[in-house]
């Protein structure tokens, strides 16, 4: 059994651009905005960064292929830079690369940066695009909301939860995210809404209405990581360290084998079991103090809280309606507004989730700061569709927790 990543790597600095409709900024401008903040936070020189990982997914809409756009945007001194893409989990993928580089001793200080510039398509929502020459011959003409919406029909059928109860719980999730987003100056959507508005919104993909869907945004986020020893030598105290990094990719079971019922994420459950083990967590509901999950759609958040073994299977609706995941609830989920309101610049999202953990654990989250500083947090960054996806889980926490 591998020894795992726990406490081997610390976060030295983080940055995040304002997310939203950044009509007047190129992807490069967003990268610089996130990077400058992170570099200043880390308190190092650019020349001290020895390797970088660049996460972006729909590069044809903005920077194009390869790692060169990152290296050029930040004028990196010819260091190794790797571009990674793993659907919407590309940001977590970049973080994994940088963290593993430090853990392996290949680099003392490494950078992970994610970016996406999605507001140059001419319409709302993710770009309509081809899926690969063979896939296009037989894949359903599916959008992201249409794919995730199906969780609701399968979940309702399996657990006997009525469409109305589902819709109400989903509405609560979205209202909560808007409340949280309203307190986040970097968030894309900062307006408060109520449940009536969610329930009566135009239908996007049944049963998901407009407010069940996250914002599609421009933005960038980045992390600079190093070893705890180097962090301390640079004068850092109360370190935030990486506790677990897990990734699970679908192997076709959900899409092609009849063992999956369509109501949950096979990958999330597999990755969660491994992540808790790696971090030494035995009772996640008692031990984890905050979550940032991939709430691309309200239904995704609902189902995910069961797949992470926080709510009992079939019971997430109760926890949601009881306010368990609200900003002032037992375990806040999306206290920064989540994908729903902070926004979803694909390649940046995984790093944005870690950014919020990092701020909250240092008491730097401003108006949305939890009264009691969280000590252990989990990010859940999902790419793809419920029937074929990648699930990236990251656990970070205070050193020694």
């Amino acid at each position, binding site marked *: 059994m591998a020894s795992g990543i726990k406490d081997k790597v610390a976060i030295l600095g983080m940055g995040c651009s304002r997310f939203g409709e950044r009509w007047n900024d190129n992807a490069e401008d967003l990268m610089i905005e996130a990077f400058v903040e992170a570099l200043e936070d880390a308190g190092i020189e650019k020349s001290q960064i020895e390797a970088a990982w660049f996460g972006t997914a729909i590069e044809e809409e903005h920077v194009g292929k390869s790692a060169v756009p990152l290296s050029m945007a930040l004028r990196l001194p010819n260091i190794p830079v790797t571009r990674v893409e793993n659907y919407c989990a590309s940001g977590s993928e970049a973080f994994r690369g940088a963290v593993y580089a430090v853990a392996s001793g290949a680099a003392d200080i490494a950078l992970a940066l994610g970016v996406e510039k999605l507001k140059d398509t001419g319409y709302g929502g993710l770009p309509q695009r081809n899926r690969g020459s063979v896939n296009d011959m037989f894949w359903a*003409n599916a959008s992201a909301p249409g794919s995730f919406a199906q969780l609701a029909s399968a979940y309702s059928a399996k657990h006997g939860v009525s469409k109305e109860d589902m819709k109400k719980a989903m509405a609560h999730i979205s209202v909560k995210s808007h409340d949280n987003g309203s307190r986040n100056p970097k968030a894309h959507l900062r307006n408060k809404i109520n449940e009536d508005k969610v329930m009566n919104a135009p239908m996007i993909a049944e049963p*998901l209405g407009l407010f069940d869907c996250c914002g599609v945004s421009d933005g960038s986020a980045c992390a600079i990581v190093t070893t705890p020893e180097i962090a301390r030598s640079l004068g850092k105290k109360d370190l935030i360290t990486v506790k677990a990094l897990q990734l699970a990719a679908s192997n076709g079971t959900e899409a092609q084998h009849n063992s999956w019922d369509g109501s949950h994420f096979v990958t999330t459950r597999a990755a969660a079991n491994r992540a808790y083990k790696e971090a030494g967590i035995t009772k996640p509901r008692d031990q984890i103090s905050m979550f940032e999950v991939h709430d691309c759609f309200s239904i995704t958040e609902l189902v995910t809280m069961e797949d992470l073994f926080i709510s009992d299977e079939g019971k997430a609706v109760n926890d949601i309606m009881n306010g368990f995941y609200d900003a002032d609830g037992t375990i806040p989920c999306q206290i920064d507004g989540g994908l729903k309101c902070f926004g979803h610049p694909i390649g940046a999202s995984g790093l944005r989730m870690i950014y919020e953990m990092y701020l909250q654990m240092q008491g730097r989250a401003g108006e949305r700061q939890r009264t009691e500083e969280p000590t252990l947090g989990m990010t859940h960054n999902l790419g793809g569709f419920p029937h074929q996806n990648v699930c990236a889980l990251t656990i970070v926490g205070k050193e020694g927790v």
Partner: protein
Amino acid sequence: MEVGILAYGGYIPQSRLQRSEIAKAHTWFNPGLKGLAKGERAMANWDEDSVTMAVEAARDCLNGYDREAISAVYLASTTFPFQDRQNAGIVADALSLKSNLQAMDFSSSQRAGSAGLSLALQVAKGGGDPVLFTTAEKRETRAASPLEMTSGDGAAAFLVGQGKVIARLVGSHTEAVDFVDHFRGEGADYDYTWEERWVRDEGYLKIVPAAIGALLEETGTDPASISTFCFPVAARSVAGMIAKKIGLPEASVADNLQANCGETGTAHSMVMLAHALEGAKPGDKILVASFGQGSDALLFEVTDEINNLSPRMGVSGYLERRHAETNYNKFLAFHNLINLERGIRAETDKKTGLTTLYRNKDMAQRMIGGECSQCGTAQFPKSNMCVNENCGAVGTQDDYPFADRIARVNSFTADRLTYSPDPPAYYGMIQFEEGGRLMSDFTDIAPDAEVEVGMSMRMTFRVKDYDDKRGFRRYFWKATPVDAPANASKQGE
């Protein structure tokens, strides 16, 4: 040995456009349309064309027959999706027929349907092995034209050959006359038509009786003995006039399906023949004739075998599977008769690599998946590594056809975001009863239909994407609700 029809099949698209809605839109311009504004016309879905409709009619026809025995596949239409790519070959592929067969397209005339059947019978008589003859039409018409009112979309299919024929060919006769009542020249989208009175008096009433008269004389048939006279013409009185002129019983004039289907172009004589066979009894004499640069006349005598024919939808079954479409704008949009704002999402390039298509043809056009010879798991698409996590065997997949299997809905949605010519786009995970699953597009979901988890679906061959830039279209199979069993008509009931 006698040659004749071994089996028949029909197909009419589910939507029936109400003619009153067409009239409502256009009588300000052409008040004459009011006279045609009764009943409804069959309206193909956006993902249907002559090839897909022919495939459905053929599947209906071949219900219970050994497809391996088929020696030729013909498709007659004047609305082929491809000018240079054998359309009958696509039909043969979708039916998973063997490659050592003769495939042929018949076109260029409203007589192509009857001429094709006539030739298929001759080939089957000479060659011995059964021939599959299909015909389909999806006629493009100008808005506010009488043809838009009187036309309908549909298809018919016949398996012809020797042996247990349900209808014996008594004889056939063809008159070829270059009488141009309408035409569609190279590069033209629509028909150019001449005055109806002239067409009736000099065309229908002279050329058709000549063909029929010759046939009856050659076969020594008493006109009064004809049970059913199938003649495709929108104005039913014309068929009556022909019947009277020849001495056919008045009651023999068959329903031209103008009220509930419309004239399916070159396929219509054959659609009417399939329809006539549904209600036929042993001993019936069915006369079918056509008109288009001459006339074909074919005479069949129904045999006792018709009582042994397996149940099938037939034209009537598909006519019962019906959604009354009252939105004429949808018809205009499906036929590009209005310049609809489809949005930027519609711009996605749908280019097909021809190498990719050929390599994956069995998957895409035949819907052949795999079955693991070690663990028995069925999967789609076929893969060289078994999807069963407890197996994972390499190179153990045998071909496994999915197209004719029934699946159930596991999850689904109605998507208004993704671009679809007919939003919302319905799709979902479907699970086949014997194993295997697929995230599948759904089609023919009527606006008033309730899709539910657990409901039964069958697969149907449809256009997956149009590549308008290059004039290509790719086909795949989509899931559609299984028709209520009550709709399947059994012979003699």
